[in-house]
């Protein structure tokens, strides 16, 4: 049996398979389906300084091999998280990591500060790429300057592993990855959702209350793979690959183009046991092809 553990900054994951923020709740929602102890880690729902009610219904539209969402970071706020959710999830036998979202630099910083104190919170993922909140989020992730700024500010208050989650809605994602690497990010995760739109032709109305929303699912995989590949050739920090991963083949593809770990997102809705199957599939693949460690696969596909 090959080694599955991987290193993300100072953090060791038992295997490269983690879950994408906003698609796996707080892990709790999946306890009936998944033994969390078999996952590399869980990225919980995007958390903001203040509680947020999120956007109005409808928040979802199905698209070809994917979906749009406009949840808008509905969450009970970091204080509630620390007091009521953290005590429960810190008992889970995997790394539970928070996706930190915000609309101002101060918001990100204050939220990250609160989380830095938590013993069993080894890492945060800085979400500078949410397309679903008017006031910001994605805006930070679409310019080198603001991506660098927010990374620098949070780096000052969060000494543990800091992963920055990048937006794919940009001309040059490698440039942004380099910028956040320069500001001390321990890793980058990509991609967040693509800004998209869906329309009801018969009623002549948008299908989302917010008109536009974030596209996820297998439809985005080819673009996400390309972006991971580009970033891999631009930075020296580890990459967590995200975008349409449904099975072990997809996960291996992301690893081959440069991801050290992966996140499974939307497909959890279709098969809530997908993550565990992916862990098994990667393990089989390594044995079948005679690899000693999953790390040996990272970036094997070269320019």
């Amino acid at each position, binding site marked *: 049996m090959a080694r599955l553990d991987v290193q993300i900054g100072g953090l060791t994951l038992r295997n490269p398979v983690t879950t994408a923020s*906003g698609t796996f709740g707080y892990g709790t929602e999946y306890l009936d389906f998944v033994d969390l102890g078999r996952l590399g880690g869980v990225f919980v729902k995007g958390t903001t300084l203040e509680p947020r009610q999120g956007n109005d*219904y409808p928040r979802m539209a199905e698209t070809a091999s994917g979906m749009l969402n406009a949840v808008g970071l509905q969450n009970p706020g970091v204080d509630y998280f620390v007091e009521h959710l953290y005590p429960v999830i810190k008992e889970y036998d995997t790394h539970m990591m928070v996706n930190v979202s915000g609309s101002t630099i101060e918001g990100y910083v204050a939220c990250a500060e609160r989380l830095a104190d938590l013993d069993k919170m080894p890492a945060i993922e800085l979400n500078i790429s949410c397309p679903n909140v008017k006031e910001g989020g994605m805006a930070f992730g679409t310019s080198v300057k603001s991506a660098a700024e927010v990374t620098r500010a949070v780096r000052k208050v969060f000494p543990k592993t800091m992963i920055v989650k990048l937006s794919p809605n940009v001309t040059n994602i490698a440039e942004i990855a380099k910028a956040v690497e320069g500001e001390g990010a321990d890793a980058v995760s990509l991609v967040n959702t693509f800004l998209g739109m869906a329309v009801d032709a018969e009623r002549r109305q948008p299908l989302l209350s917010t008109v536009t929303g974030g596209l996820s699912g297998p439809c985005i995989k080819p673009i996400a793979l390309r972006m991971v590949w580009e970033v891999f050739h631009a930075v020296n920090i580890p990459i967590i690959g995200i975008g349409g991963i449904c099975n072990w083949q997809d996960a291996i593809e992301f690893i081959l183009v440069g991801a050290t770990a992966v996140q499974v997102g939307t497909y959890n*809705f279709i098969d809530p046991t997908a993550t565990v199957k992916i862990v098994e599939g990667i393990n089989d693949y390594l044995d079948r092809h005679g690899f000693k460690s999953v790390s040996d696969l990272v970036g094997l596909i070269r320019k």
Partner: protein
Amino acid sequence: MQVTDFIIRSNEALNDRNRLIKVTPADHRHLPPMQPGQFVQVLVDRSPGTFLRRPISINFVDREKNELWLLVQEVGDGTREICSRQPGEVVNLIYPLGNSFTLPEGKSDHFLLVGGGVGTAPLLFLGKELHARGFQVDFLLGGRSATDILQRADFEQYGTLYCTTEDGSLGEKGFVIHHSLWQEKRYDFIYTCGSRPMMVAVARLARERGVPCEASLENLMACGFGACLCCVEKTTRGNLNTCTEGPVFNTDMLSWLD
């Protein structure tokens, strides 16, 4: 909650758009406890246009035959694909999902269950459970025409069946909210499932009469088990997940009547 392969035992056309599909677990294990109002998420894996699962109510649980019944109306690619499955084929379900209609403990209350179209689906199972608890149940089902009122014989096993049809081909002519029953009888609980305008109208009548009312919502869902926050309904307690805190809500909690 579990993810389970089922075998299709039968698939019967009830009219030109609705099919009754009876399934049993492929591994022959006993069906777990289920409550009326709960639903399943059906995997649709043979339709290129369909990506997500489709929520379908639990229409009935036949414990003797270890069968789950689904009543499905063909409205788009997903439901059409589900309806095309033949006996012997496999269908994958996540279930049981959601809360349920309130089943009070053994008082001799009178219940009115109001359904429209395929919204009658969860009311059969609900009627059976209420009946089994010794309650008196009236069903009031509406449709455009007699052929739209499905599973009549089944409903009649568990209570008295009243109908309205828009063309008058069965029961009283008109909509459920205009049935003479509303003038004649008093109920302790009213439960409803159907189109939103119908449920809003029923909730309004219930409120006028001071009767508690529960409605089962059919919000769009991505996951069905509380992970995505896509299915929210605005309530007096904020945005709640229809899939976990519903699909059944007391209509007083909803913003419908504001």
